[in-house]
């Protein structure tokens, strides 16, 4: 059945890109219908960034390093965190939150009937443009950090950074998708946002701060079992600190495994979906 559908209506990669473009345009139109709201949300992100910068500026007035990260390295880390979170929020967060609602109302039926991969359709349906400026702000912060560090960016560092960043995005997305998929069995998953928040609060600081004896267990669990600590730390380390092949390798590996696991969970969830209608 599955094979038949795939073989019969398999589209080229081009149609996926075209569809993605259409989603983007449609979402942008929708967002622009409420321009004031859009500007307010962007303003909020800027205010929040200002608070964060003031926070870390205050800290770095009193210390020159946090576990080996100096101020500009840390700024790079912060930019990386900001950009990555912005990307996840722009592309996936809203879609994953709405997935539960589709299951509850039974509207998921319409999406399953469409001749395109369900996971693609449900993951990219809405693009939340109001959080997209975070990606730019994060990029600017990273650029500023690199500029102030004034160290040459080697090809190896850049490559390591990009690969680790892609793996980080894969991990964060997979975690969200797995959380969203549980909606099929639980119908209501209000804790999704809270669990996502937990995941993102683990990404927020460099993994080096978990070196304390009592925190080693936390570090191990969130490095090897649910690798939230790698998501931002490893790409930032690759660019502005030490490029450690072992941890980079594990990050890539973990990204792949989580992607496969989330795909498996999603498919399993869809297979056990029963529509809401009588």
């Amino acid at each position, binding site marked *: 059945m599955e094979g038949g559908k795939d073989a019969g209506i398999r589209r080229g990669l081009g149609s996926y890109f075209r569809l993605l473009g259409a989603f983007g345009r449609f979402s942008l139109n929708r967002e622009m219908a409420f321009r004031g709201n859009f500007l307010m949300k962007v303003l909020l992100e800027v*205010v929040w960034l200002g*608070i964060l910068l003031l*926070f870390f500026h205050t800290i770095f007035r*009193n*210390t020159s390093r946090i*576990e080996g990260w100096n101020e500009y390295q840390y700024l790079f880390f912060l930019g990386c965190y900001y950009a990555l979170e912005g990307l996840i929020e722009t592309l996936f967060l809203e879609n994953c939150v709405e997935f539960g609602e589709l299951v509850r109302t039974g509207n998921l039926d319409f999406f399953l009937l469409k001749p395109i991969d369900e996971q693609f359709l449900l993951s990219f349906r809405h693009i939340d443009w109001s959080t997209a400026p975070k990606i730019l702000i994060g990029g600017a912060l990273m650029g500023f950090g690199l500029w102030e560090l004034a160290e040459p960016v080697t090809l190896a560092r850049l490559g390591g950074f990009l690969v680790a960043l892609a793996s980080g995005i894969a991990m964060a997305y997979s975690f969200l998708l797995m959380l969203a998929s549980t909606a099929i069995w639980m119908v209501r998953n209000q804790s999704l946002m809270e669990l996502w928040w937990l995941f993102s609060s683990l990404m927020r600081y460099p993994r080096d*701060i*978990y070196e304390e004896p009592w925190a080693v267990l936390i570090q191990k669990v969130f490095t090897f079992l649910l690798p939230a600590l790698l998501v931002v730390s490893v790409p930032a380390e690759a660019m502005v600190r030490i490029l450690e092949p072992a941890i980079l390798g594990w990050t890539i590996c973990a990204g792949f495994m989580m992607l496969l696991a989330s795909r498996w969970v999603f498919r399993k969830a869809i297979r056990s979906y029963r529509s809401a209608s009588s």
Partner: protein
Amino acid sequence: MSSVPALPAFRPAGVLGAARKYLRIFRVSLVERLAYRADFLLGTVLRFLPLVTSVLLWSAVYRGSGNDTIEGYTCRQVIAYLLLVHVSRMFSSMPGLASGIAREIREGTVKRYLVQPLDLQAHLLAYRAAHKVAYIVTSVLPYAILFWLMRGYFEWPGEPMVWGAWLASLLLGFLLGYLMEFALGLLGFWFLEISSFLYLVNTVSFFLSGHLMPLDLFGGRMAMFLKELPFQYLAYFPASVILGRESTESMVRGLLVECGWCLAFFVVGRIALRFGLRRFSAFGG
């Protein structure tokens, strides 16, 4: 309105009658809230996790600085402070209050306060007090465990007066938080949609109240300025009192100024409510 004869059963019998009325609202709301205690517990547990990362971050900051104190705070005091602001916010935070008022105004349901012998400000206060009691009662256990686990970070003051001042500052913090949010919500009389504005105010308040770090750490003029604002009473001030960082004089002064802010926001709320209701037009039947 004056042409509607008041039913005898609803006629408030003086102050005592009014008190009884709002006490009943308090009780009903309390029962309603306690129905969702499992939700509370999960929420509380999840709220502790960022605390773990904060402890780690500040330990790393102090290790990096090589100093024992920053702006007069030891590392243990900063961590104790970060825990104590949670207690402050437990009293002073009012999730959904302003947006709820704005929604009632927008949808017109606020008109019931025109026909029922209820005062909007007093009714919502009783309702919120019940929420707070339910919230605090259900969070006592997880917080007690947390404080016990982290007992090494605390040096509790011996003088009963400090404890009394702490309690007073927490209760006043609740009142101030309520009155500020209430006044904000009344903006709904003048603006149709204020939810993103409220979100912005909340974010700024999170910072100004000292939830992020002790206000003193900003140093110099910045810290002095932040301590002139009413926001500090929502998080910073109570924590600073129980940490024993306030002299008797500054404690008394702080509590008096806080009372002043409460009065100011109470008056602002009354005036805004009066003018707001005058321009309010309810729709629908």
